[in-house]
C-alpha cells in the first residue's frame, strides 16, 4: 500500500485549486449550464417519443458498441505488437495507429470514402466481386466510428502492456504455462483495469463521432443518422429536439463514464499498490 494520491497531510496549493476551478467552470460547467438554460423541459416527452430521435438513439448505441467491440478485436493485437515486439518501422506503425487522434474526423471520412467508397481503392473491387456497397450504410457508420475511436484503445492498452512486469510472465512460463495460459491468467488480469478504461474511452469517442460519419456514411435517418448527426440537423433547423438530444447524450456519457471510470481507477489503484 504505497502510492496514494497526494501525500498525507499535504495541502493543495491555492493557485492550483483556483486555476482548476476556473477551468472547470469555463470548459465544463458553463457549456452545460447553457444547454440546461435553453432546455425546453416541456417538450422532453414529445421529443423522446419521436420516432426519429429514438432511431438516432438506438443507432448510436448499436454503432458505438459495435465500434468498441471491433476496437477490442483489432486494437488489442496492434497494442500487443507495439508493446511487445521489436521490428523495423514500429514507430511508423504506431504513428499510423494513432493518426486518427490528430486527424480532423472529416479528413478521416474522406479518406475512408476513397478507400472503401464505390470508386475507392478497395471499394470498387468489393462492389464488383461481392456487390457490396459500404458508403451510406450502417456498416459505414460503424467503420467510421471504429476508425476514429480505436486509437484510444490502442494507446491505453499499449501503455498498460509496457507497464506489466514481464518477470511474472517468465515465472508463469517456468511453471509450465504456455503463451495462451500466460496471457489469460497473468497478463490480462494485470492489465484488466486498463482494458476497461480503454474500452470506456473508445466507446465515449465513438458515441460522439460526427465528422467521419457524416462524410463517409451520410445522414440517413434510421440507417446512418446517429445522435450527433440528428442533433446537428435539429440545431440547424432550430428545433428544440437538438437540445433535448444533446442533454440525453451528455447524461448517458456522464453516467457511463462515472460508473466505469470510478471502478476502473479504483481497480487500477489497487493493482498499482499491491
Amino acid at each position, binding site marked *: 500500500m504505497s502510492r496514494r494520491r497526494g501525500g498525507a497531510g499535504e495541502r493543495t496549493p491555492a493557485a492550483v485549486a483556483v486555476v482548476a476551478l476556473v477551468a472547470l467552470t469555463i470548459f465544463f460547467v458553463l457549456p452545460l449550464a447553457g444547454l440546461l438554460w435553453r432546455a425546453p423541459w416541456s417538450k422532453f416527452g414529445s421529443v423522446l417519443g419521436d420516432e426519429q430521435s429514438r432511431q438516432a438513439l438506438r443507432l448510436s448505441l448499436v454503432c458505438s458498441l459495435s465500434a468498441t467491440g471491433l476496437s477490442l478485436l483489432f486494437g488489442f493485437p496492434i497494442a500487443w505488437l507495439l508493446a511487445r515486439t521489436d521490428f523495423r518501422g514500429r514507430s511508423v506503425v504506431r504513428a499510423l495507429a494513432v493518426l486518427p487522434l490528430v486527424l480532423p474526423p472529416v479528413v478521416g471520412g474522406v479518406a475512408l470514402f476513397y478507400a472503401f467508397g464505390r470508386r475507392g481503392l478497395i471499394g470498387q473491387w468489393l462492389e464488383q466481386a461481392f456487390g457490396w456497397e459500404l458508403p451510406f450504410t450502417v456498416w459505414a457508420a460503424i467503420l467510421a466510428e471504429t476508425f476514429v475511436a480505436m486509437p484510444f484503445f490502442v494507446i491505453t492498452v499499449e501503455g498498460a502492456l509496457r507497464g506489466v512486469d514481464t*518477470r*511474472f510472465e*517468465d*515465472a*508463469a*512460463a*517456468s*511453471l*509450465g*504455462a*504456455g503463451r495462451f*495460459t500466460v496471457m489469460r*491468467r*497473468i497478463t490480462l*488480469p*494485470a492489465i484488466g483495469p486498463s482494458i476497461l478504461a480503454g474500452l470506456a474511452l473508445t466507446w465515449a469517442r465513438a458515441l460522439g463521432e460526427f465528422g467521419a460519419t457524416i462524410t463517409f456514411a451520410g445522414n440517413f435517418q434510421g440507417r446512418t443518422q446517429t445522435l450527433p448527426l440528428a442533433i446537428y440537423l435539429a440545431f440547424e433547423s432550430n428545433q428544440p429536439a437538438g437540445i433535448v438530444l444533446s442533454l440525453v447524450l451528455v447524461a448517458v456519457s456522464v453516467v457511463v463514464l462515472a460508473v466505469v471510470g470510478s471502478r476502473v481507477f479504483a481497480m487500477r489503484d489497487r*493493482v498499482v499498490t*499491491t
Partner: protein
Amino acid sequence: MTGAGLDVRAQVRVGTFDLDAAIAVEPGELLVLVGPNGAGKSTLLRAVMGLRAVDGGRITLAGETLDDPEADVFVPARRRAIGAVFQDRLLFEHLDVVENVAFGLRSRGTPRRAAREIAMQWLERFGLTALARSRPAQLSGGESQRVALARALAVEPRLLVLDEPFVGLDATTRVDVRRELRHHLAGVAAPRVLVTHDPIEALGLADRIVVLESGRVTQTGTPAEVAARPRSAYVADLLGVNLLHGTLRAATLELDGGHPVAVVNDDAITGPATAIITPRAVTVHTVRPQGSARNAWATTIADLDDQGERVRVRVGAPVPLSIDITPSARAELGLVPGAPVWISFKATDVAIAAE
C-alpha cells in the same frame, strides 16, 4: 556427458557482455553460485531455465538435451520442469496462495480440483494451510518465501533454482527463512542451484560453490576450500572467512579439536554446527586482553601476507584463524612470524549454522 544431473556449458552474448561458463550439478547436490552484480549469474540462470537461448554450448538435464544450438535443440521454459524461486518471490498478486501453488499443476493440465488438492498438501507441509485463501500482499516476507518454494516444488521439478531468496528480507526474517529453507531443501532430491550474496548461506548450505566473475567461472570448490583459499579479492571479501566445525551445546561450540568457542545461540541449536567468523572481526593483542570479548586465547603468528590496504595474519594452534589488520597496526605491534600473541573476538561476531 549425460548424467542424471544438470550439465551446462553456456555461451551467451548480451550487448557487450559475454558469458562463457560451465557448471555441473549432481542429483541431490546443492550448488551455490556467487559473484558480483553483473557477473552473469542471472543470465546463466535464465539460460538454464529456458528464458533465453544460449548462443553456444549445451545444456542437459537428467539426460535430456534442453538447449544445443548446434543440434538445433531448444526446449522452451514451460517444458523444462525446472522449479524456480525468484528474486522478489514474484507471487501472482491476483491469485490467492492456494492458486499460486496450484498454478504449475494447472498449467500442466491437472484439473482444477485435483491441482488445488495437491496444492493444499504442499501448503500443509509448509505450515501454510491457514493462509490458503490469503492474497500474496497479505503475507509476511517469510511466508511469501515459503509460498514461493511450495509453488516451485509442487510441479515436482527435475531441478530447483533459487535466485537470491534472501534479498528484501529483514535481518530477523532472514534467520527464520534460512532455517526453514535449510529444512525444506534437505528433502529435495533434485539438483539445486542457489544464487546468493549471503556468505553464511553460501557456506552453510552449499555442497559446492561456483564463483562467477565477469562472465567466467573463476573458482569452484567445497565451502571449506573456497573459504580457505579465495582466488580473488571478491571471493576473499565474501567467503574468505574462518569456518570452524564443532558441536553446539547452549552458548558454546565445542570445536572438533576440543577447543570451546563462545557463541550466541539464538535458535537454540544443539548438535553439529559450523561457526563463521570474518577475518576483520578478530583482534590481535600483544598482551592478554581485558575486555568484553568472550573469546580470547594465546597463540602464535604462523605467517603474514601483505595485501596492500590490509595485512592478512594467520595464527596457529589451538585454533588456526585468518585475521585482517591494517599495515599500521602490524607496524605498531611489531608482528612477525613466530611471535606470541593473544587474539580475541566477540561471541556476537560468530555466525552459526546448523549442519
